């Protein structure tokens, strides 16, 4: 047995903090984030928070520099982000209070590169067709 299992009540405080941040997002459009990794959450606290927030309509799995899982909780605008590191351990975990986490949106630089790539591929295809 370890001392990691008890419930400390931290989940309750976090829920109040999230509620406040969500109201601010609605009123002023100000986004916020809470870094879960830096908090002394026990396994029981984490499970309690996850259960209280529940799961909403959107979830995504990202395969970039290790796996990540993102989901909108049952409260619109409250997102849970979990990044796995070495050995499938949680490397970073946060709650973002935002309409859409930045990580889900395509970056303008990537869009630019993708546009160039697609155009080049189409040109190659057209070229190939001409030679056939």
């Amino acid at each position, binding site marked *: 047995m370890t001392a990691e299992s008890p419930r400390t009540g931290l989940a309750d405080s976090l829920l109040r903090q999230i509620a406040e941040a969500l109201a601010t997002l609605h009123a002023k459009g100000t986004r916020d984030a809470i870094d879960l*990794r830096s908090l002394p959450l026990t396994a029981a606290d984490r499970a309690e928070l996850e259960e209280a927030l529940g799961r909403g309509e959107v979830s995504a799995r990202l395969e970039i520099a290790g796996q990540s899982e993102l989901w909108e909780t049952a409260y619109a605008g409250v997102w849970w982000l979990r990044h796995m590191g070495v050995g499938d*351990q949680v490397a970073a975990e946060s709650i973002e209070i935002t309409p859409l986490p930045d990580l889900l949106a395509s970056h303008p630089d990537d869009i630019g590169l993708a546009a160039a790539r697609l155009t080049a591929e189409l040109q190659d295809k057209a070229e190939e067709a001409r030679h056939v």
Partner: protein
Amino acid sequence: MSDPGTIGAALAAQGISRRSLLKYTAYLASVLALPPMASRAMAEALANTKRQSVIWLSFQECTGCTESLTRSFSPTLEDMIFNLISLDYHETLMAASGDAAEAAMQAAREANKGKFVLVVDGSVSTGANGIYSTNHGKTNLETLKEVAADAAAVLSVGTCAAFGGIPYAKPNPTGAVPVSEIVTDKPVVNIPGCPPIPEAIAATVAYFVTFGKLPELDHLHRPKSFFGDTIHDRCYRRPFYDKGQFAKSFDDEGARAGWCLYELGCKGPVTYNACATTKWNGGVSFPIQSGHGCLGCSEPGFWDRGSFYKPLSAAVMGNRTLIGGAALAGVAAGAASVALARKRRQAALAEQAAAQKKAQEKTE
């Protein structure tokens, strides 16, 4: 689009999306205790920055520090640090050897004069003019003085480089000293630990690349974000300490119930490091979670502090008691005794260093 030569362009050339960078900066912000909202600005800044040239010198060391950094980096999130830096010289990791390796270092030094980060692991031998540890016909002492003169900053990685470590332990036959005793005109960051936490090494370099300056340091030049709290401050066994519940042997009922390891010699209350939160092997565990007390390996003079298995109130340094017997009496000692311990430790260390210097002078 990112300019050629920048980290953003290098990532794009490898087909790595900017999402990866954003994910990495979210991770960095977390381990560096920066506001989580800082990650977006950090990712943008990094994308437009040139890769940081790093020269890594190994002196009197066991290669554990390099193992720490490389072992943790399977191709995952933590691996991203190698996209931010250009590791221009590292004897153990580079393919070149002999004259070719030295030529690579000279080229990197010249190309990045005043801009490269110098990482050193291992202590510096000064006895008999440093002849105990040499490389390519030069003593480590000469090499350090020469290369550090061109560096932007120096990172002393591991307890040996930061505080002298095991080579510095009595009787210190090689006259080992920490890097900071030789490099006195450049910013020196200490990242102690035997070995040091890999995230602390990577994040400190990443911070420098992102912000162009060093992170906030404590009185021993350690980054505060990793060395701001003691192991004890963040230890999950702390509730047992506070209640006075101590394991008396490694296999008694208390040990099996996960009680505090203070009486078994845990040095957590006087050891500043992030093992209790960052943990090891990708967050799997740390010594106390695996059932062994903290050895205090990241503190100055840890090897000469008496038994690893005696409680702090009995372990001595010089003749000074490190901490009062409050915990033994089952009372929550808390911050006051830790602060007292810190003061006493500093005094004891100064005394120890003076005694060691005297002894050294006598032998030379």
